[in-house]
């Protein structure tokens, strides 16, 4: 279709430019064009959250966002959580608490939990369950996911305290 738009955004800190028709969904741009296959398609009706990415500080379901809507945006996906070869505390916690099984929901869960922790650094169990209610998991029953988010919150807090501590 001739009706293409040049769309530029930052993806995990890197500038990206794609040429898309208006109907192209963000999930397909990320997966099929930009080789970011972490976010997955699970339901296509914005109920499962497997496609969740972070768009300008919002957790969004990328199966229900048009790529043209992302011009000028800042996007983060699961692929951007690891910094300088170091796993983010939330990734580490999912591993340690056995918060994943088949792994299909995990990228969406992680990026959603990451945003949740930025907004609610000390979440209660109810905060976590409410905050992750847009992400379905068929394997874990969520219990270990809740534990992982709590553990990550502690890790982040400890890390901040350590970072603030005067060097000896």
């Amino acid at each position, binding site marked *: 279709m001739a009706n293409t738009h040049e769309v530029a955004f930052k993806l995990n800190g890197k500038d990206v430019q794609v040429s898309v028709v208006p109907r192209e969904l963000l999930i397909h741009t990320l997966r099929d064009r930009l080789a970011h296959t972490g976010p997955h398609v699970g339901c296509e009706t914005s109920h*499962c959250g497997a496609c969740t990415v972070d768009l300008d500080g919002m957790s969004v379901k990328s199966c229900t966002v048009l790529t043209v809507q992302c011009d000028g945006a800042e996007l983060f996906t699961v692929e951007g959580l690891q910094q300088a070869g170091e796993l983010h505390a939330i990734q580490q916690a999912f591993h340690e608490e056995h918060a994943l099984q088949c792994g299909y929901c995990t990228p969406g869960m992680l990026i959603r939990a990451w945003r949740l922790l930025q907004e609610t650094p000390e979440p209660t169990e109810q905060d976590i369950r409410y905050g992750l209610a847009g992400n*379905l998991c*068929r394997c874990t029953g969520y219990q270990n996911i809740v534990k992982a988010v709590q553990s990550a919150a502690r890790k982040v807090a400890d890390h901040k305290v350590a970072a603030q501590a005067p060097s000896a």
Partner: protein
Amino acid sequence: MGDMTELKAREDKLQGTGTSMLRKEDARFIRGQGSYVDDIQLPGMLFGALVRSPHAHARIKSIDKAAAKAVPGVVAVLTADDLKPVKLHWMPTLGGDVQAVLADGKVCFQYQEVAMVLATDRYAAADGAALVEVDYEELPAIVDPKKAMAPDAPVIREDIAEKKEVGHGPRTHPNHIFTWEAGDKAAADAAFATAAVTVREEILNPRVHPCPLEPCGCVASFDKGTGALTVYMTTQAPHLVRTVLAMLSGIPESKIRVVAGDIGGGFGNKVPVYPGYVVAIVASIVTGVPVKWIETRIENISTTGFARDYHGVGELAADADGRIKALRFTALADHGAFNSHVSATKFPAGLFSICTGSYAIPNAYARVDAVYTNKAPGGVAYRCSLRVTEAIYLIERMVDVLAQKLGLDKAEIRRRNFVQAEQFPYTTAFGWTLDSGNYHPALEKVLQACDYEGLRREQAARRADPNAPTLMGIGLATFTEILGAGPTSVCDILGIGLFDSCEIRVHPTGAAIARMGTMSQGQGHATTYAQIIATELGLPASDIVVEEGDTDKAPYGAGTWGSRSTPVSGAATAQAARKIRDKARKIAAHLLEVAEGDLEWEIDRFTVKGNPSQWKTMKEICMVAHTGNLPAGMEPGLNAVTYYDPPNMTYPFGAYLCVVDVDKFTGEVKMRRFYALDDCGTRINPMIIEGQIHGGLTEAFAVAMGQQMPFDEAGNHLGNTLLDYFLPTAMETPHWETDYTVTPSPHHPIGAKGVAESPHVGGIPCMSNAVIDAFAHLGVTHMDMPHSAWRVWQKCNELGINKRQTP
């Protein structure tokens, strides 16, 4: 004797059986680097989109491809007529029937596959699919299986209308598939005739769908140059699929490679071979380029393997003390339009005859009648061995019904009927030999942990208060599962025995790679199998790589379903490791210049009896096995492959307790407490076991409380998106408490029985029993699932207990 701390340190380093080793597979998943089928992109790949029938039963008068073919990017449109020259418009099913790959003149269920549009991208394929014009002549549909065998019922399967049988014995009606019977009907009838008390209940296991988060799909790639076919696909049983594809296509099985990469959950849904796979394969063979087909969620729920749809009738006969004398269970099974119900050849009704459960019932008879209806084909197991949930649901419900009739406590009736510990191995009236069990202590442990007597007192007080806004229910389930299909003498699919396999290659430095015929869909095989090998070989689990799913690499096996991985491949793994250890022992004896019998295995080495300072570690032996200082005549290397044909099934069990509060005015059920004690024999990785139980209970919760596949009278599916189909979120899902006892399997090399399905099989009746128990004092003996707020409210309304007492 070695220093205890030193021994412990050496053992800990292995992270073998019994340790909660963190999962090896997590590393890629937490980075978003899993490799699922839709992640695969091959050069020149086309996308396939299926055109599906809007009607449940209709004749196809014509198909017009012109508008679709005119869409930019559309390459071809395939219909049954295009598949006929290669004889692939029909395919055999895993249930002994045939199924239309693309509708051949007629559609028999809504969303049936009619055509596939091939295009250069997903969007163009969808555009094309929307423009294929199919002219249908609607026919009357059969939705209710109870009407399927009426004399004037429309014939659903004209292609087999005259056939006297379709794989499982004589048929009595064109819509009849099979009638299966087990047990001794005369003996059961006689026991019923003389029993002090009998109970009967109609009990439905509604049609549900396993609904893994990843839908099904494949990438088929046929190389015209070599004649080799590679198929990346979402399958729980890659080797069986390869065999089916070879039978179907005529391509030598050695030139077919099936690769199941990472699988985003299966739960039974990814066992069958679906038409979409076959059309994609044909399309790739015809076009010579790779073809990807990925179904949508609507397609997944509407057309791929559903589960259950068992319309059961349970009957028990007992003496005045509640000791069960006989059981008669029957079921009418709705298999949909094609019998693609996954079943072992000799068990068309799966393992339904495990329905005596944990109880010593001397006389038993079971019968299942299967029929065609105008609904999607299937009848896969949903997180259970075939038809085991249906069986256990019936017995666990009926035991409650019997207790209610006798005025007996629901724990007490179970105590009175359990198979006693000293009776194992115990052969049931249906002929299954339960390998091991210890039911009484398991139940007592749960009752004590939950203060069962206290709960019953609280319930009595609640029942005494007419103004209480809620009803309180206490559910028990004391189930026995049947896993590890299975002994090839009785279990096969399409003639292939249900053994499984493991090949281990140990490298010179003491690292190893192992490959199995199973296929993980999240169960953590890469970790668990490595732990088995670590313990058997004394090599650290972290250095053992496990691979499954690539048929070019792994030895043949029947795959992962019915919790068979640990019972069957886990056993093969232990045996393969033991073969290697036996060889290592010979090498150690040679190196230490002692007789084999003078050596003792100690964690990671052979030591000389009575001279513990003399030893050879496994790691040292690994190097020697490759450098050549071997006993005369011994081959170099440390490899082994085992095909394990289990001598028996395994029979894990559990005792579950559930407490619910039912809102009389809205019908909402709040699960206040759920306590699950599982005994799966030897525990390989407790962390993974607990994770499997959490997941299984959550899927049980979904089935008991909300899942169902609703149809209207015309056969239209009314709830095929995740808006309607109930997958609980973190908000709805209760908190799970877990516990265990350990009763090893006597015939499994390491005593393990399998666990992932127990919480589903035991959880569903436990939850149902709790909801129904809330109404038991009002004379209610049964309510069908799902226990959604609406349905529970209807019961409250019927009983008139949702009226407020205005003062």
